[in-house]
């Protein structure tokens, strides 16, 4: 019995027990359902073992939406607790765990997979590739992410959630002050997911650099692919820092080292530095693909080419470079003195210049356009004003002397939500509406979509604008309660209303998916938006080989040119196509990694060693397996093409 005591949660509450029951019921229902409908074979063949970038992309997006609701539930609980002074809904420990998991889940298990999901689905199509460079590695990336995400998510019912904030600063995150296994979950789960992300970075960098269709030079790549390329370069440079920091944190917590401890020569500031050397580029890993999405959407629905293509590319490159030299602005108040702060203050504000260039280029893309206000376009048009509000407050935060007053307050919280929600979340929702017909063969209802967009946009303003005010009034972030005399009550109550509006908006999106699934017409063709880039040149649903023959590229809008000027896009004859085989190894490795992480969290060394051996066995099997892929014959391709509406 003693063995099992470690799995108990240190701070149980009825809500957590209810969640345990709900998780158990849902899990059983899923297993029973799949068995009843005899879908195990289908699931295994078509999804669990797939190496197809489109399916992996869809799985990433489904996981991201699930995590959005997990993180959203945390957010609602936090806002509810703070909605009134001296509220007793949550106690301090519970609140601390919730804001920690909210941050980690939203950044690493919602925003990241959402972005990587769209990169998976869109990038190979946009560059005319048949798949990514390393399809199996891509599957492994997904399953590592998924294992990490699930491991992190079970923490609140087994052993307790991390409670030191998503930044997990030491020594607070050390054993002395964070006594549950929560922070072990943080270290290990993010590590596993992070390995997957690092592999994604290598994979997509290679794909974009080596697998573009003939004629597509770098400066003829669509803007989303450009953003994906730069993002993956940042991933490859930034994530190893996180890997090392998490490994050191794990050693501190489980093996008694003192890298970040405040005693025996350790240094707490080292964690803060390492964390943000990764953490700030991470912000741009999130926002650059979002910028790419907006570029595609705005140009499509303004019916115009993207204004200032070259300066768009240049500004992204400059942003990516600057993203590595601003990390100190996350702790201007750590005592490094006026000189260091001045340097980082200037580099921080400098980022506003390339970002401003992008905003103006989008505005100028609208100029002389023919704007149709579809749901994706509406999200993009709401993004510009809201993100500008978030962006200019970022410049204010960059003024380091003034930052001594903003730091650690709700002003900061308001700022980063006002950039991440309009910047990243709106982009992902725009992309969801925009690419939905390509992914699933029907369109989401535009009217419901627009209502949802308005609710979410106004909800964002109502939820986060008051925080600027309460922050300037002295409300520190991460306080689980405040006194009535502080006067923060009214602002937090308004925030609560905004949070509920956001919840309603997201619920409406789910309803829209259900509604459109039932009622939307299925005969929408392959290019329902009259779009401009290559992903719309293939069929819907996209055949597994993407393009029957390789497109010939001569501009960054070749598909548009071929529609308008009639230049042939696919001049070649059909030949047999080489495709990779499915593989169960990535999925199995994902499961083993999950068990490996779980053993690690609870310091169960024997299962840990067994799992480690299992991982190496999988890798060895993978290395010695003789699999050269397979060919799709010309007849088979011709049949597929005929079925989908002829060769385009």
């Amino acid at each position, binding site marked *: 019995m003693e063995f099992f005591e470690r799995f108990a949660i240190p701070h149980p509450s009825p809500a957590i027990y209810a969640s345990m029951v709900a998780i158990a019921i849902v899990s059983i229902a899923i297993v029973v359902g799949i068995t009843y409908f005899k879908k195990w074979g289908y699931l295994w063949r078509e999804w669990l073992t797939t190496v197809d970038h489109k399916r992996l992309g869809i799985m990433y997006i489904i996981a991201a939406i699930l995590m959005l609701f997990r993180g959203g539930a945390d957010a609602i609980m936090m806002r509810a607790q703070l909605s009134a002074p001296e509220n007793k809904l949550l106690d301090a420990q519970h609140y601390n765990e919730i804001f920690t998991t909210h941050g980690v889940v939203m950044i690493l298990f919602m925003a990241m997979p959402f972005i990587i999901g769209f990169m998976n689905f869109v990038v190979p199509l946009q560059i005319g590739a048949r798949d990514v460079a390393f399809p199996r590695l891509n599957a492994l990336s997904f399953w590592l992410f998924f294992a990490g995400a699930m491991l992190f998510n079970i923490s609140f019912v087994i052993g307790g959630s991390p409670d030191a904030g998503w930044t997990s*600063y030491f020594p607070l995150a050390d054993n002395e002050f964070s006594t549950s296994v929560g922070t072990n979950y943080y270290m290990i789960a993010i590590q596993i997911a992070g390995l997957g992300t690092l592999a994604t970075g290598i994979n997509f960098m290679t794909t974009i650099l080596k697998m573009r269709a003939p004629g597509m030079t770098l400066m003829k790549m669509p803007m989303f692919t450009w953003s994906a390329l730069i993002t993956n370069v940042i991933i490859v440079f930034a994530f190893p820092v996180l890997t090392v920091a998490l490994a050191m944190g794990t050693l501190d917590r489980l093996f008694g080292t003192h890298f970040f401890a405040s005693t025996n020569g350790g240094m707490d500031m080292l964690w803060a530095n390492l964390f943000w050397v990764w953490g700030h580029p991470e912000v741009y890993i999130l926002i650059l693909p979002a910028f790419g999405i907006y570029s595609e959407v705005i140009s499509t629905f303004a019916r115009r080419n993207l204004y200032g293509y070259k300066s768009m590319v240049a500004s992204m490159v400059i942003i990516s470079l600057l993203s590595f030299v601003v990390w100190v602005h996350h702790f201007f108040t750590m005592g490094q003195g006026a000189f260091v702060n001045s340097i980082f203050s200037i580099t921080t504000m400098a980022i506003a210049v390339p970002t401003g260039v992008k905003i103006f280029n989008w505005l100028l893309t*609208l100029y002389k*356009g023919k704007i149709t206000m579809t749901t994706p376009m509406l999200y993009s048009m709401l993004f510009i004003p809201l993100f500008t509000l978030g962006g200019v407050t970022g410049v204010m935060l960059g003024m380091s002397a003034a930052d001594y007053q903003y730091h*650690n307050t709700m002003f900061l919280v308001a700022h980063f939500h006002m950039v991440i929600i309009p910047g990243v979340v709106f982009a992902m929702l725009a992309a969801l509406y925009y690419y939905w017909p390509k992914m699933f063969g029907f369109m989401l209802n535009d009217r419901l979509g627009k209502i949802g967009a308005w609710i979410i946009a106004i909800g964002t303003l109502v939820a986060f604008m008051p925080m600027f005010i309460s922050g300037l009034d002295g409300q520190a972030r991460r306080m689980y309660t405040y006194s009535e005399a502080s006067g923060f009550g009214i602002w937090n109550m308004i925030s609560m209303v905004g949070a509920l509006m956001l919840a309603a908006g997201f619920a409406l999106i789910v309803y829209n998916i259900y509604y459109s699934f039932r009622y939307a017409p299925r005969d929408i063709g392959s290019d329902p938006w009259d779009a401009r880039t290559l992903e719309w040149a293939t069929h819907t649903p996209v055949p597994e080989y993407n393009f029957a023959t390789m497109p010939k590229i001569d501009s960054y809008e070749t598909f548009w040119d071929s529609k308008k000027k009639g230049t042939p896009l696919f001049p070649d004859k059909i030949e047999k196509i080489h495709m990779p085989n499915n593989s169960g190894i990535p999925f199995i490795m994902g499961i083993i990694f999950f068990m490996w992480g779980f053993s690690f969290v609870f310091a169960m060394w024997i299962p840990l060693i067994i799992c480690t051996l299992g991982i190496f066995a999988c890798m060895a099997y993978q290395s010695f397996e003789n699999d050269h892929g397979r060919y799709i014959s010309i007849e088979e391709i011709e049949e597929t093409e005929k079925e989908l509406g002829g060769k385009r």
Partner: protein
Amino acid sequence: MKLKRALLLAIVAIAAVLAGCEPLTVLNPKGPQAEVQANDIMMSIWLMSGIVIVVFAMLAYMLIKFRSSKQGKDYEPPHIEGNKWVEAVCVGIPVLIVAYLSFVSVQSNYKVEATPPGYEDKEPLVVYASSSNWKWHFSYPEEDIETVNYLYIPTDRALEFKLYSFGPITSFWIPQLGGQKYAMADMVTTLHLAADHPGEFMGRNANFSGKGFAENTFDVTAMSPVEFEEWVDEVHQTADPITEDKFEELLEPGHLGKMTFTGTHLDFSPAPEGHEHHQSNDEDSEENHENHDEHEGHSDHSSH
């Protein structure tokens, strides 16, 4: 129009910040450092509002003028690559704005990291402020006094807070006197403040430090030099001396009310000053140098 409504809401929200029913704490400074910061904040709010208005206006113009419903059915938008003059303006104006803000920012940095102007004639009052879960200990070496969770300060002298922590990283913050700075276990940071007028202010730890973080606050009372002297005398007459055992007891995690002692814990539990961060305008660097030798065995990042 819905868009207008959203824009209006945003503007109203900003206006609320600017006008404020009653002055917001940070924008209601009671000391020179907080005033520097409040001025920077207000200046940047106005400047940023200008940018926001330009962007909103451009967006509104584009959306109204170039909607497809306003265009002819056969209208084909032109292909425009970009114009170097337009792009030069789009880069140039932000560069000018950022350059101006950088200029102000650098100046303010040196102001807030030094003894405020007008207070140079007297030696600053040095107070060691150390945090433990979840309390603040204030040691006045000059007055030989130690308090817990409250701070008395004179209005005629600059204040030099020496910050460190007996636990997680905390952040010492008295918004009306000036911005915050971290207190950490392995080094001492210096925060320069001053109070212009007598009054009572809120002070707190602003950096999340665990379960008791929300209540990790202290009261600040600024008073005339005479009153401050009286208080010091009174403490010496009435308070008990702080002992090592008593101090160990105080360090136990939890919350305490206000307490007053004679003597300081610095005598038996000195601040980790050998690790002081090297600050470019640190006037005490020589003093630190002396302490440095005592801590030689430790890893040291400061470059004395």
